[in-house]
């Protein structure tokens, strides 16, 4: 397939295609991205051919110091907040479950940094990162994960259903692929309302099959909806390797069959993700239709829960379906230090300021944990509420 670049090639050429800085200045670095044609976007197919080959890397150039610092902060928030959950859970007695996002932070932050607050996101079972990047409150999120009465969803939903409608968060969703369809529906609603909002649907590599994605994609393409589908290809569906269940290597290619532009990006490179996301967002806002963006990445922990992991240590080792070696290679591509090196080299942050940010985020996370811990549990009878807007449903125990 023309233009196809797989992960091996990405590995082979980090200095031109990634944000690993080799003492190039920020502008030079960005120019070098421009020189390879399409920023850090490696594959492009689909209808919007004019866009192909155009440099879109100017988006990165116009990010302010505040924005770049916020991106770094948000990545840390995701990392440290989820790591806290892991440590609390391994300690025992944790009132909840979680699918950790650690290792994939660059995607959520790269994408959500390209959004306005009034834009929407539809999220997945692995969605804490998306919500944090969209502005989710760490306290209310942790209270929800531990099913407390004052959590985002009053303890009804837990990890899989955190939602904050005021931030345009259409909710996490425990059914794989549903985020795409709900998101495309919301994008249709935007057209009816006549605003210039956009919707981002996040989904894993597993989310493009099944009945949801196809319906979302066809309608988004036909009606030119302001819909951006982010495929977080972390290469596994639980333990099933992506390459064993698809006839295509780059999942963005699926978009082509609908007449949607598909792009592939290094999902561990927050600026590359931002770059292509911003392009897609501007395009959608201008009424030029949807984009599917595949972000290649890797999850550090097990699909679900904390097997193979330890308090105070990053990553889950000894899992049957992947080698520790493979994990270590990906941990070496950790998006956070990679971005930090870039920020320091580009003089956006000093080492000292970068350390301070880490300390600040740690404090925020500790505060969230203390908050959640102190919150009351829901009342038993409340489960009978909120089935309908009004009233309680009857109990049938006697």
């Amino acid at each position, binding site marked *: 397939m023309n233009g196809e670049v797989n992960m091996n090639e990405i590995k082979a050429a980090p200095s031109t295609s990634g944000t690993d800085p080799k003492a190039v200045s920020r502008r030079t670095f960005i120019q070098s991205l421009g020189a390879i044609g399409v920023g850090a976007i490696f594959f492009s197919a689909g209808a919007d051919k004019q866009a192909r080959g155009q440099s879109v890397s100017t988006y990165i150039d116009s990010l302010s110091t505040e924005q770049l610092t916020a991106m770094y902060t948000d990545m840390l928030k995701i990392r440290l907040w989820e790591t806290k959950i892991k440590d609390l859970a391994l300690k025992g007695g944790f009132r909840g479950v979680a699918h950790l996002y650690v290792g994939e932070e660059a995607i959520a932050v790269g994408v959500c940094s390209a959004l306005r607050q009034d834009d929407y996101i539809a999220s997945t079972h692995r969605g804490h990162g998306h919500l944090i990047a969209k502005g989710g409150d760490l306290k209310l999120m942790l209270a929800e994960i531990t099913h407390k009465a004052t*959590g985002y969803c009053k303890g*009804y939903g837990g990890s899989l*259903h955190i939602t904050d409608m005021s931030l345009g968060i259409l909710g996490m969703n425990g059914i794989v692929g549903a985020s795409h369809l709900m998101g*495309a529906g919301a994008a249709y*609603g935007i057209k009816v*309302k006549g605003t210039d909002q956009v919707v981002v649907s996040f989904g894993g590599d597993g989310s493009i099959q099944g009945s949801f994605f*196809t319906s979302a994609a066809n309608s988004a393409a036909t009606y030119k909806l302001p819909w951006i589908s982010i495929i977080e290809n972390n290469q596994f569906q639980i333990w099933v390797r992506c390459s064993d269940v698809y006839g295509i290597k780059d999942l963005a290619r699926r978009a082509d069959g609908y007449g949607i532009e598909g792009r592939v990006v290094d999902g561990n490179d927050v600026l590359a993700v931002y770059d292509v996301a911003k392009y897609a967002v501007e395009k959608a806002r201008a009424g030029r239709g949807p984009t599917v963006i595949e972000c290649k990445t890797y999850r550090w922990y097990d699909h679900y829960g904390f097997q193979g992991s330890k308090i105070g240590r990053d990553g889950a080792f000894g899992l049957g379906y992947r080698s520790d070696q493979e994990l270590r290679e990906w941990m070496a591509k950790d998006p956070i230090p990679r971005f930090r090196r870039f920020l320091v080299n580009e003089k956006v942050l000093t080492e000292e300021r970068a350390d301070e940010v880490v300390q600040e985020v740690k404090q925020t996370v500790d505060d969230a944990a203390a908050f959640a811990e102190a919150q009351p549990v829901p009342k038993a009878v409340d489960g009978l509420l909120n*089935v*309908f*807007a009004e009233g309680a449903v009857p109990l049938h125990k006697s």
Partner: protein
Amino acid sequence: MPKSMRYAILEAIQGEMRRDKLLTLLYEYQRPAARWGGRSINLEAEFGRWRARFSAIDENWIVGGALGMSMIGVRAIAHIPSMTTLIPYELMFNHAGKLRHMTGGQAAFPMILWADMQGRASFQAGQHADAGLESCYARLAGLKVVIPSNPYDAKGLMVSAIRDVDPVVFCHYSVPTSGPDVPDEPYTVPIGQTAVRTEGKDITIVGYAPQTVEIAKAVKQLKQRGISAEFIDPRTLAPLEQVMETIIKSVKKTGKLLTSDDGSYSFCNCTEIIARAAEAVPGTKFKRLAFPDAPPPGAPEMINYMRVGAADIVTAAEKMVRG
């Protein structure tokens, strides 16, 4: 000629689309257009294609799209064809019915699933003459289910469904026109409000949609035979609590509950009604008439034999009252 069921439904939607400038209809090929007398309704012509939009053959889009829109405040009606009732079922189950609860009341899908339903017609067979799927929806938590048996109720229930903040499934069987004239202006038939079609004291008969035609005939014939039947059309199938109040009051009076369904026997909607009445009013006699637990065969000889008709209702009622 009175307004047809279809015209009445479209008139309800038209009125609400005029009131709510965002209300949108997603559909497949069932054009939202109808004529009555000298008048006509054409929702696409009146409101534009964005608000009355046909799609590919894709019921998951129609329902899923409506869900997504309604979540951001664009109320939506998803109109699906009759042979596809169960294709978007999971969307109604795991999403529509659950979102409010899962989010502790924070988010909801104020959408309407306008589900075309099949009857027991000949020459259709297998996948095109099924019935009774309303009870598939009535069983799902968080959904309201309404089922009109005449154009007046159809319009009033559709208006109620649209104005409701909870997701509502509007089950639309083709039923020969009967009942009161349909006013041009919007009005509501409240969800949960049952209709006692005929008052009586010897036996309670419950049924809805196409079976109301058979029951109405049977009630007349029973009267001629000296049996006074109370005929109740539930109109709402979920939540059922309020409906059961009326039915239980009647059953306490008559001591006998006969139900008649076009759906297959097992788990047809009247199963739930009988089971609730059995708990509430011990000593009642029950009879549940229904289509057998079989797919619908195409040949008229076979399917007509299987479907419950007025004569069967009369026989069963007489046996219960006299036997």
